[in-house]
């Protein structure tokens, strides 16, 4: 196309180029919005996952459990603690002749402590007296 022809259709050419520019920028906006939307979902999901895993890790934190475990030994008198065996992430505790109040106290602590309760056995041993045995892991 000669320079004269270009000059002749200069106005139309300018409009055509600007229409191309508008088309390109619209496509850019459209694709940017699309990629931003998917990126947003991806980041939100990732943040939510990280937060949830972090929250769970903190909740079931082994270090905290280790501190709490020793309290099970001192909650009732020594005479009633027949066995208290703690080794490699596992605790076996046996209590004898617990009063209702003591049983409730240990049970509440058991429920509130963040470890795995593998086994729990409560047996009535007399009037308002109970034997208790539990195994927990962390």
């Amino acid at each position, binding site marked *: 196309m000669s*320079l004269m022809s270009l000059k002749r259709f200069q*106005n139309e050419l*300018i409009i055509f180029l600007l229409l191309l520019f508008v088309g390109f920028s619209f496509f*850019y*906006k459209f*694709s*940017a919005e699309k990629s931003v939307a998917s990126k947003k979902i991806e*980041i939100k999901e990732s943040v939510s996952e990280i937060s949830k895993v972090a929250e769970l890790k903190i909740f*079931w934190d082994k270090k905290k459990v280790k501190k709490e475990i020793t309290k099970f030994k001192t909650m009732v008198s020594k005479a009633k603690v027949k066995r208290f065996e703690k080794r490699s992430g596992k605790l076996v505790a046996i209590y004898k002749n617990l009063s209702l109040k003591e049983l409730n106290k240990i049970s509440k602590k058991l429920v509130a402590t963040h470890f*795995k309760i593998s086994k729990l056995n409560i047996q009535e041993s007399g009037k308002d007296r109970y034997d208790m045995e539990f195994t927990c892991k962390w």
Partner: protein
Amino acid sequence: MKGVQILNFMGSSKLRVLVHKDMEDINVKDSVDIVLTPQFYTFLREDLEIKFAYQAKKIAPAFFDDYLNAGVEHQYHVYKHSNEWYFFAYSVEEITTFLEERGLSSHQIGKIYFVQELEKRLESPMELGETMVMQTLEGTVTLLPKRLLSREIEYQSLNLQKEKFQNGIALSSSYDSIVPFKETALLSTLLFFLGSFFLFEGERGRSSIESLEVSQTELLEQYPKLSSSLQRNSEMKKYTKIDREERVKREALMQVSKMISNSNRLKSLVLNEKSITATIKIDSPVAMRKLKKLAKKRSFTLLNESAKEISVEKKL
């Protein structure tokens, strides 16, 4: 450069060239404005009740019907002078072809003026080449053969750079474009702003996720081990399982504890990974019915039942 009026000392910054058939070659590199002599245009004046130039331009071709060669494409230019409309018909093709022969490329042509604008200035004659003279006769700038004028006549000289031209037209807009210049300018501005707006919006969208990315980075800095999605999924599975199972166990224990009241007491409770079983002693049939109802409501199944004792179980 005999015959070509080029001066660039004052006035317009562009050179002005008077275009006539006897002009000599032009040797310039920059663009120039051209001033057409009557050899390159046809001029008509009309006293019309028209307000705007675009209206006059629309009807211009009709005025020149009888004057122009139908085989040549013409362009038209119109402006108002005093009470009359001045109409010009010219051929860009003819002008550019001629000027290219004289060494001036079409892209070097800036504005086109018509020497008719100098009608007052050309009251006295001016030499145009060896044989022609240019002079205003009855308000129209006309070309005359030099031989028709007296030999003693004194010709004036003309410095185009000093003359004031008001009704020029750009070569690019001289064509009868489908889209006129004004509309092009308006539409171009609108399109430019629209395009820029889209670009800006796109860019704004991209920067909007920056804050999210920052919070993600901060979180990952705190828990670098969780940056891998595989690691996250594995930890998530592990802890979700523990969390779910232990919550179920604790909830079941709480439910059993809520079943115990003044009218009954716990005889035994066994909890393991799979189930929870509770045996409860009951004092009265009313309390027994209540307890059975409560156990059923809390999804416990009845294992054993006697007059004063009941065993319930729940799978975990």
